[in-house]
């Protein structure tokens, strides 16, 4: 086919589902109302850790309007998102692990009846010791919250050493040793999770759900319900915000599916806002210690990172989260020797999981604040320091991550220029300050959640004589614009308008598998699959039209809804006619495309977390004003430059960048998922401090600063039209840039987030009394780490394997999923 300039890609455009979203016609899961539909409520544990001694549902079952009561006895299979953490029950059988764990499900004619009947379930609990603090979980092995994991209440402890870090520290002119804390926070999607299950007329089960990962829910339903997966359909409804909060498999999805099967009636559940705080799977609280050796020039000689991760009551994505706290330190700056030790413990709190950035914002925060301290000590401008140590393109890092394009230096230069950073840093009046930080993120995880060698994303296209093109893909629209990417990519290849493409997505019956909207994978993976399917369709149409016009196919151009001769543009046919000619020649038209990421260079255990087909890069400058009398930090302006490879729809790209900055400022300044004890005269139970949107503070229209977004476009060969991710990466540098700006403004270091006025005041008080003016964790605890996996880096002659891997040789081949 003849080359032509891009017509759709890169042009700001109304998204294909834009009209539905502004007319209220986007159907979310709770908008489904079916005939004979019943409503489900889950009775949840008021105790954070207890054995269920007995449960009597007879009074509830007899309540007028109640149709069914389910308990743990109605299920025999556990589930969990990771194969190694199958630790959740649809309804708890014998043990509850946090306040909010479900103990019974009531299905009734309406929500109010179900709610009333919850009071009629009699549960007898035997209270167990509550693990409120990760340090307690480290120290106390009994009672075990789960009977699996590394040991005691340690879920996962890992140690991986890439090169001789001791020698690296010996080589250093300075060794910096800092402890940081990143408080947990939650997604707070405005849509509360909802699910509807129904048995079809042919006896098969359908679940419509607010999920980011219909394929994984599909697998879990088959396991828990003990039904063939082929007899279950999962439809991911458009999500009213996801941010990772709907990427796990939820007990309420299992429960309504079971209830629909038992009753042969549709059953709906919609979580209350309070319940959404319990469903959680949000940002892990992480305590971390960074030891970093540097030369006088700023060059890094070695890094040793330790993380202590508060996992909450279940595994969730936690094993992956643990590795992610140590995975991406090496992809921004050259780290020649790197030792990572990470430890996730169970506590009796709602399970943590993936939130935008999954496990990487916490160590990114520590790394970038420490770099600011290094720059300060070495008297190097912090942007210059970063430019000196930026990693090179086409590099294999110490931990075997393959970097292709890296636009970080350009991001730094651009953001420094547009913000006037050098004129402002250390030069603004007291109380005003400016800070810089950088980051990187994956464009899709290189490996799937469960080990398999099938594609990560599949796209099918149907073309017919109407001229209509339908694109089918399992990817999930969660607001980010995945349907728009699908339509735009297909339309670009076929020379039609995105609005000419009908998209059918997120439906396990109708669409080929795509693993879901997580790890910023959709644009790259679905996009590549869509290009392949569309190019195959174009080929079919081109051969038919070329024969019709009696010219070589290579001379054809697909553009402006026409297929025509590049040498004589008047000579050609309308797209619809072209499809008719092709249908006549080839028969019914359909094509498929699929995408599998390139193989990983990491062959050691745990090396499955971190590889990606492409890494995005971001640099941010944040300006703050700090009120010395109140400690209040306000942010007038943020400048951010993002290396996106290629922007497919700049309108949506900017929305992702600004939305990331917004969410990051919430994390930096106010958002925290924290807990408190009820008074002793009550139960003394560990409960969520404020499970409401009023008290869980998040930024409003009045808090949002001006944001200047710069996009760095250097197409990445692995991305569709060169595109890399944008949904998560731009969140990462904002929190550390803000802390660095606070230091610039008032000379105090807040080594944890959120940066609340109280912490600022304490640091200012400390400084006034002659202290260091630092607020943050004092120490990192002693942890019984496992022996490190020894993996020589590429420059030490390593081949990606650990030299002391004790697994049998057959399992070393290829990267192992964690």
């Amino acid at each position, binding site marked *: 086919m003849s080359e032509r300039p891009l017509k759709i890609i890169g042009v700001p455009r109304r998204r294909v589902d834009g009209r539905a979203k502004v007319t209220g016609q986007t159907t979310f899961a709770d908008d489904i*109302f079916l005939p004979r539909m019943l409503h489900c409520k889950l009775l949840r544990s008021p105790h954070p850790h207890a054995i269920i001694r007995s449960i009597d549902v007879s009074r509830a079952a007899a309540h007028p309007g109640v149709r069914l009561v389910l308990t743990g006895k109605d299920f025999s299979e556990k589930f969990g998102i990771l194969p190694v953490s199958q630790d959740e029950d649809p309804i708890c059988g014998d043990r509850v692990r946090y306040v909010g764990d479900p103990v019974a499900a009531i299905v009734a004619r309406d929500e109010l009846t179900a709610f009333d009947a919850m009071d009629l379930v009699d549960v007898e609990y035997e209270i167990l010791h509550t693990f409120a603090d990760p340090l307690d979980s480290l120290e106390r092995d009994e009672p075990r919250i789960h009977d699996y994991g590394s040991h005691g209440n340690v879920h996962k402890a890992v140690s991986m050493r890439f090169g001789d870090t001791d020698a690296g520290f010996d080589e250093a002119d300075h060794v910096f040793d800092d402890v940081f804390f990143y408080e947990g926070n939650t997604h707070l999607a405005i849509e*509360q999770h909802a699910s509807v299950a129904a048995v079809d007329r042919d006896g098969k089960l359908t679940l419509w759900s607010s999920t980011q990962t219909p394929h994984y829910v599909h697998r879990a339903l088959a396991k828990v319900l003990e039904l063939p997966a082929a007899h279950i359909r999962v439809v991911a409804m458009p999500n*009213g915000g996801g941010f990772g909060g709907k990427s796990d498999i939820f007990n309420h999805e299992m429960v309504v599916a079971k209830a629909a099967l038992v009753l042969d009636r549709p059953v709906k559940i919609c979580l209350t806002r309070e319940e959404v705080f319990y469903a959680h799977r949000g940002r892990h609280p992480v305590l971390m210690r960074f030891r970093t050796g540097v030369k006088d020039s700023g060059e890094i000689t070695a890094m040793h990172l330790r993380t202590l991760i508060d996992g909450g009551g279940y595994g969730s994505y936690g094993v992956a989260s643990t590795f992610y706290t140590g995975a991406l330190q090496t992809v921004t700056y050259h780290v020649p020797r790197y030792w990572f030790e990470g430890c996730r413990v169970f506590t009796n709190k709602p399970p943590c999981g993936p939130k935008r950035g999954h496990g990487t914002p916490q160590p990114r925060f520590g790394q970038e604040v420490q770099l600011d301290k290094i720059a300060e000590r070495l008297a190097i401008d912090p942007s210059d320091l970063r430019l000196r140590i930026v990693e090179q393109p086409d590099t294999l890092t110490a931990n075997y991550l393959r970097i292709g394009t890296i636009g970080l230096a350009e991001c730094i230069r651009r953001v420094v220029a547009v913000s006037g950073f050098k004129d402002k840093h250390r030069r603004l009046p007291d109380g005003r300050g400016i800070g810089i930080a950088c980051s990187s993120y994956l464009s899709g995880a290189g490996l799937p959640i469960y080990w398999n060698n099938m594609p990560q994303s599949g796209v099918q296209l149907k073309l017919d004589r109407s001229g209509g093109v339908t694109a089918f893909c399992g990817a999930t629209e969660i*607001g980010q614009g995945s349907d728009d990417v699908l339509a735009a990519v297909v339309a670009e290849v076929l020379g039609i308008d995105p609005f000419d493409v009908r998209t059918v997505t997120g439906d396990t019956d109708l669409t080929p598998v795509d693993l879901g909207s997580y790890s910023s994978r959709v644009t790259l993976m679905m996009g590549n699959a869509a290009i392949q399917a569309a190019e195959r369709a174009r080929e079919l149409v081109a051969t038919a039209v070329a024969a019709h016009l009696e010219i070589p196919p290579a001379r054809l151009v697909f553009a402006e809804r026409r297929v025509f001769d590049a040498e004589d543009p008047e000579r050609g046919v309308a797209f619809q006619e072209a499809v008719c000619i092709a249908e006549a020649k080839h028969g019914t038209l359909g094509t498929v495309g699929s995408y599998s990421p390139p193989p990983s260079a990491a062959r050691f255990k745990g090396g499955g977390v971190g590889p990606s087909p492409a890494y995005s890069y971001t640099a941010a400058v944040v300006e703050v004003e700090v009120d010395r009398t109140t400690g209040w930090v306000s942010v007038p302006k943020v400048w951010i430059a993002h290396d996106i490879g290629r922007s497919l729809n700049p309108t949506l790209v900017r929305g992702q960048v600004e*939305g990331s900055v917004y969410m990051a400022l919430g994390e930096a300044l106010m958002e925290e998922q924290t807990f408190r004890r009820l008074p002793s005269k009550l139960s003394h139970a560990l409960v969520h401090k404020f499970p409401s949107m009023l008290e869980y503070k998040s930024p409003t229209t009045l808090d949002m600063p001006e944001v200047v977004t710069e996009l760095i476009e250097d197409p990445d060969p692995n991305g569709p039209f060169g595109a890399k991710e944008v949904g998560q990466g731009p969140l990462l540098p904002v929190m550390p840039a803000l802390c660095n700006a606070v230091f610039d403004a008032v000379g105090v270091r807040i080594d944890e987030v959120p940066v609340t006025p109280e912490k600022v005041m304490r640091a200012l008080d400390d400084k006034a009394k002659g202290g260091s003016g630092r607020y943050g964790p004092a120490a990192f605890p002693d942890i019984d780490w496992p022996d490190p996996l020894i993996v020589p880096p590429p420059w030490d002659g390593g081949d990606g394997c650990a030299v002391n891997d004790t697994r049998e040789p057959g399992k070393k081949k290829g990267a192992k999923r964690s």
Partner: protein
Amino acid sequence: MSLEIEKSNAHLAMRVNGEDVEVSFAPYKTLLEVLREDLGLPGTKHGCELGECGACAVLLDGAPVLSCLVLGLECEGRDVRTVEGLASDGRLHPLQEAFADLGGAQCGYCTPAILLTAKELLDREPHPTRDQIRDALSGILCRCTGYLQIFESVEDAMVRASRPGERRASE
């Protein structure tokens, strides 16, 4: 609330999106529930049902209210406008056009509430400043956009509103 009341439905008339309707519903229901469950208007969303998130805002006699905090019983004879009633004569409202074009809606969940609240602002103040827009929308949480494209959409709508008759090419 006693069982007697729960069992007997309220029946009342109101004007919804310019149409006179009569509706029967359980008297404890909020306007939000009556709209979504009894009037078949699920375009109005909910994020907390406690008056905290603003996602359920509708116009009641032209003024923005949180429909989760209004009882259906309070709406006898009153005028309610929801997102389903924003377009007219088969054409989107300028706010809807602008939000769709300029990224004002990402997931679309808070969008109905934002659109109605912005409509009330533009009805009252056809040329609001950025600060007036911020102020008017401050009770509605959006987790996707960071609000900036929402502000720009409202500002663009105010320009579009002064140029009636213009239509998008792709319609």
